[in-house]
């Protein structure tokens, strides 16, 4: 048995474990704990059927073009059956009753999806694209058909649709603003460090020191610090700066993003082989020409790597903005934590994870392109 097979078999076992754990629970309302049922009890015949389909992705002997779609079908069956089971379990109950997803569901879902991805890795690029498109289409169709409407998470979403959308946009705006601010800081500093290498050391040490400060401390400390600053210079208030709100969130996040950005810009600029630069100079290229034609093409893939780290960090860090009144998806998470409302917490947390993973994958793709052409 190969190691890849062992890994996939373990994932299959995790799916089984998920089905044995609390899968779906029915509660009288959104805050009270419910009565939980295991996967086998909650979705009856669909559980073994989905398990068999998912496990088809384990053996190496079964071709990937068969195993990966089978596992995908298994995951889709889990989702569909869970949606129907939720609707069924709420029949005849008061409208406030909720059918919540248990830990077993999430465990099974993540392990099943990981199994699909692991088996699809053996497919050619085209096959993976078709499978991904098919997975998205299936999910969309199930959503459109109202399969998940009875699930507590979706009920919570429907109740707060506008709030969630606004928080999502707010989250992106905060992350974007922090990224822009960090770029404004990092790029000139990196250029200066490239021109005068002596300056790079202290800048690196200062930006590195920011990284050591725990984010929650920096976010929080900016409130009294900004309050002090505003007391000294009330004019700043007319510029829209406040001690509470987006200002501390954007400032603190930008502080953390500056290091990876600065380092990747500097690293990219110095990535060019000194011999290649000397040759370009010897051929009569101007400094501007060398930067444009030799340094930048070599710098872009390195910079894309730093940008990826920064973007993923920005999406994660802005979450703490919810603590300092900046809003965003983090506000939903903390509101959920305060009320012990799991669904509300998930409404904030799931989009954050999805955004971060999507940004990571997208920029990775970009890096690949740049790396390939350079």
């Amino acid at each position, binding site marked *: 048995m190969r190691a890849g097979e062992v890994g996939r078999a373990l994932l299959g076992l995790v799916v089984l474990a998920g089905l044995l754990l609390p899968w779906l629970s029915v509660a009288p309302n959104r805050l009270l704990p419910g009565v939980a049922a295991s996967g086998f009890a909650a979705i009856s015949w669909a559980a073994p059927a989905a398990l068999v389909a998912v496990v088809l992705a384990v053996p190496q002997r079964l071709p990937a073009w068969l195993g990966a779609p089978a596992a995908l079908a298994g995951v889709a069956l889990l989702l569909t059956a869970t949606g129907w089971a939720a609707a069924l379990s709420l029949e005849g109950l008061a409208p406030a009753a909720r059918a919540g997803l248990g830990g077993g569901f999430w465990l099974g879902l993540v392990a099943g999806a990981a199994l699909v991805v692991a088996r699809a890795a053996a497919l050619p690029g085209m096959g993976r694209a078709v499978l991904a498109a098919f997975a998205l289409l299936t999910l969309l169709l199930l959503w459109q058909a109202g399969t998940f409407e009875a699930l507590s998470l979706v009920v919570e979403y429907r109740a707060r649709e506008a709030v969630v959308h606004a928080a999502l946009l707010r989250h992106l705006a905060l992350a974007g603003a922090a990224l822009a601010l960090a770029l404004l800081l990092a790029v000139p500093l990196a250029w200066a460090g490239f021109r005068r290498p002596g300056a790079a050391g202290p800048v690196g040490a200062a930006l590195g020191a920011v990284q050591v400060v725990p984010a929650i401390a920096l976010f929080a*400390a900016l409130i009294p610090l900004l*309050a002090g600053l505003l007391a000294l210079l009330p004019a700043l208030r007319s510029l829209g700066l406040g001690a509470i709100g987006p200002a501390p969130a954007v400032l603190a996040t930008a502080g953390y993003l500056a290091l990876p950005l600065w380092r990747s810009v500097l690293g990219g600029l110095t990535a060019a082989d000194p011999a290649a630069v000397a040759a370009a100079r010897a051929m009569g290229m101007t400094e501007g020409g060398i930067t444009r034609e030799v340094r930048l093409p070599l710098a872009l893939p390195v910079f894309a790597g730093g940008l990826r780290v920064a973007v993923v960090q920005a999406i994660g860090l802005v979450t703490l903005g919810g603590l300092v009144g900046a809003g965003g998806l983090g506000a939903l998470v903390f509101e959920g934590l305060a009320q012990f409302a799991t669904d509300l917490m998930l409404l904030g947390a799931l989009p954050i994870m999805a955004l971060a993973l999507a940004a990571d994958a997208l920029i990775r793709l970009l890096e690949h392109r740049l790396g390939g052409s350079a």
Partner: protein
Amino acid sequence: MMALLLAAVLALVALLPGWFGGFPPGRLLGLAAGHAGLALAGVVPAALLGLALGVLVTRPSGRALRPAADAFAAAAQAVPPVVAVALAVPAMGFGWGPTILALLLYGIMPVLRATVAALEAVPPEARLAALALGYTPAGALREVELPLAWPLVLGGLRVALVLAVATAAVGALAGAATLGTPIVLGLQNQNQILVLQGAAATASLAFAAEGLLLALAGYAAARGGRSSASPASSAGAAQSRKP
């Protein structure tokens, strides 16, 4: 030494207001001890696990697990610790549980990455020579590969410990009594002194952890006669993520 100096200054900032009606220094020190203990309790098993995993996926027999480990590390990096803590609450309830889970998760990654990078940076000819001279694979790992990888692994440990201090602070949101507690209390009650004290104390602890590990790396490098610790330490910091 800069880090230890900063830690001392920040500790003063955190403690001083206590005598003028702020959060009492005694309680703050108690929380700091709990905070440090929690971070260590999380980071030690996580580091051992990360080290073991890193060794496993760089062995010929475990090489096939490497893509899975990379994917796991990348996915976990994309989830901010604060979200991990929050997601663990429904499963484990308020208290220490969610924080310990997040500490374990976030302690493994930097050590795993550093171990893999460090073992891959071991000159292949040194490994080949070890085998050719008659070391068993385990002997080559123990006597040649790990000693050569150690400075880089130490860099990963430092990142893991600093990250653990930060994650433990976030744990206050899920009900763990740490230095994050005065921050959360201060934010809820609009008490800016409390916020400042908590923030300074947390940062002080993080700088102390950083400074101690840097000193340890410097000591190890001096004993080994090499100075390979510094590139390692800067390489790790870019990967760190704050909750």
